[in-house]
């Protein structure tokens, strides 16, 4: 199928928009959760280390008291072997396998508590230097926490022999205590984290609510259901909403004033031109053909520039308009205007199709093309409205205007769109219709295409891109 695009101008492509960034709520929640996890983790580690240190100190003190208990009852016989009373104040020392053990040793012998009976891996007891103490954990001494002090024991003969008294405890009890504390600690910290995250979510939702309201109201303005932001907003947002309202109001007022000024200007300039044009008809035309041509040129230029200026009144957020009613109104008007030539206009399409375009621009765009079809066609015109390319929020729109006239040569189409030359000198008109339609459609990033018509004449397709 031969397809000509207007004026060889590059066909606008839908530029890839910026991808949707993660929502503010998600960012704040993730950031908050990460900071909370780091903070609670560090707190947990510090508390855990503190508790473990305190528990070890308590253990050491307990073992120390056992050592001093042994020391209070110990004696060394003449051969230098340690002797301890049979019954000690700490009953666990007398119970085999109780986990608490004690002992004493000299270079000549050793004593250990009855609790050590049956223990396969006993703490490794050895003499340590006089006047020193040691405390070591299971990492160093098998499965035991061991506390020992080194002493010098003076014998009745004045000899001083080395004596080491030790106490050891199975680490199971200690580790159970620490593990119990650690479990409680992380459970409570986890619960605290959950409560903080829930609180954070609630606060964020409350904080972001006004922003969501702004978004909803802007969407309603876009949809044409309201003209300004009307809800009450927090003080911090009021400068933003007030400025947005002022911007919308200014834009609306400017568009209105600008249109009125253009209408006044058109009236002020075209009426004298009409006087000149009318006076030049008749005899004067033969005498001053150049003047007549100059008046035509002035009118041509004036109309083109006024149309161009009018387009700059386009609003930033034009509400969507249903296309078919506009086409139907134009069809009714043209049927009335061209009643004498028996013009038949057929309008096809879906009532639901809407375009985000200023109503005046839509009327101008379709009016020019439909008027051309009425002028240059041979009594039949068909206008078909359909959905165009799919978009993120709203599909594009395609409007096909066909006639049964002589058609337009594809190689001339670009020229007609670009310069506003008249395609068929047999009819009245300023030859601007296609050029105006082309400029309008470009303002909305759309395109005009010439297609073969099933009616036999020209078929021009307006394609407005999706939102």
């Amino acid at each position, binding site marked *: 199928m031969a397809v000509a695009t207007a004026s060889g101008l590059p066909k606008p492509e839908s530029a890839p928009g910026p991808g949707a960034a993660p929502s503010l709520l998600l960012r704040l929640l993730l950031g908050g959760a990460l900071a909370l996890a780091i903070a609670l983790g560090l707190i947990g580690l510090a508390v855990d280390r503190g508790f473990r240190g305190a528990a070890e100190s308590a253990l050491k003190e307990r073992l120390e008291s056992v050592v001093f208990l042994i020391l209070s009852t110990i004696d060394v016989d003449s051969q230098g072997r340690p002797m301890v009373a049979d019954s000690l104040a700490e009953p666990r020392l007398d119970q085999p396998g109780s986990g608490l053990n004690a002992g004493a040793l000299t270079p000549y012998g050793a004593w250990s508590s009855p609790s050590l009976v049956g223990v396969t891996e006993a703490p490794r007891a050895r003499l340590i230097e006089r006047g020193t103490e040691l405390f070591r954990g299971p990492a160093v001494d098998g499965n035991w926490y061991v506390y020992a002090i080194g002493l010098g024991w003076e014998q009745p003969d004045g000899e001083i022999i080395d004596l080491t008294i030790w106490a050891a405890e199975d680490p199971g009890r200690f580790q159970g205590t620490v593990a119990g504390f650690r479990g409680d600690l992380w459970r409570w910290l986890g619960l605290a984290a959950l409560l903080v995250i829930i609180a954070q979510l609630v606060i964020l939702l409350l904080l972001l609510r006004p922003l969501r309201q702004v978004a909803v109201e802007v969407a309603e303005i876009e949809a044409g259901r309201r003209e300004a932001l009307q809800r009450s907003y927090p003080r911090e947002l009021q400068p933003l909403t007030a400025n947005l309202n002022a911007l919308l109001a200014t834009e609306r007022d400017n568009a209105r004033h600008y249109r009125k000024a253009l209408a006044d200007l058109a009236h002020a300039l075209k009426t004298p031109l009409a006087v000149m*044009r*009318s006076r030049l*008809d008749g005899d004067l035309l033969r005498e001053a053909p150049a003047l007549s041509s100059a008046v035509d040129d002035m009118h041509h230029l004036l109309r083109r520039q006024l149309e161009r200026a009018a387009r700059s009144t386009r609003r930033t957020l034009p509400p969507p308009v249903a296309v078919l009613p506009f086409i139907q*109104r134009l069809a009714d008007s043209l049927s009335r205007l061209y*009643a004498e030539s028996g013009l038949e206009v057929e309008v096809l399409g879906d009532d639901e199709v809407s375009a985000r375009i200023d109503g005046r621009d839509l009327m*101008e765009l*379709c009016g020019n093309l439909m008027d051309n079809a009425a002028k240059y066609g041979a009594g039949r015109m068909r206008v078909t409205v359909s959905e165009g390319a799919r978009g993120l929020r709203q599909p594009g729109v395609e409007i096909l205007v066909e006639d049964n006239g002589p058609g337009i040569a594809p190689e001339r189409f670009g020229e007609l769109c670009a310069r506003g030359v008249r395609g068929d000198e047999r009819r009245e008109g300023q030859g601007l219709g296609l050029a105006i339609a082309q400029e309008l459609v470009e303002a909305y990033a759309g395109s005009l295409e010439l297609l073969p018509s099933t009616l036999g004449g020209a078929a021009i397709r307006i394609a407005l891109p999706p939102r």
Partner: protein
Amino acid sequence: MRILVIEDEEALRELLGRALKREGHATDLAADGTDGLHYATEYPVDLAIVDLGLPGHGGMEIIRSVRQRGLKYPILVLTARSDWQDKVQALELGADDYVTKPFRIEELMARVNALLRRSAGHAAPEVRFGPLEVNLSSQDVRLEEQLLELTSFEYKVLEYFILHPDQVVSKMELNEHLYDEDADPDSNVIEVIIGRLRKKLDPDSSWQPIETLRGRGYRFRSAEA
């Protein structure tokens, strides 16, 4: 025919008035919307040319008022605004055609004549009544294929009859529609003109196209009927 021109630009208003008179129409000229609305609703107008950008009542308001009062004469909009929104709005309010400024005076006159013709129910400019053939565009009048020489006023009367066939037309109505507001025609003039027309249109009194209805006026009989 009596044509009302509502245009605030004096030069253009006068120019249109002269051009319409040259075509044989009676004219009323209004310089603003207030006068225009008064003429449009109180005078026996056959066609109105209305500028949209008027001081006082705007052109759109005048069209709306005329149609709301049930007046059906054709309205031609004259506008400096060339956008379709205004054109469609004017047509929906009841205008019949529009001409965008600046315009060629011949184009405007052709539109005026076409509107007058269409309002009388004639699709083509050539109208035939028995042996009589009138071209409302070129104003040629032929009787049995022979060109008839009519004076300007004779043509105006004939045209009025042709656009109102088989209707009773009083002398007062003819005066109102064929003379300007400030003209003071002799009441016998109409009778003289009609007498002359009868002789030219029906020299042998064979089809008697213009009836006299005593005390009421005249009726142009369409021979086709």
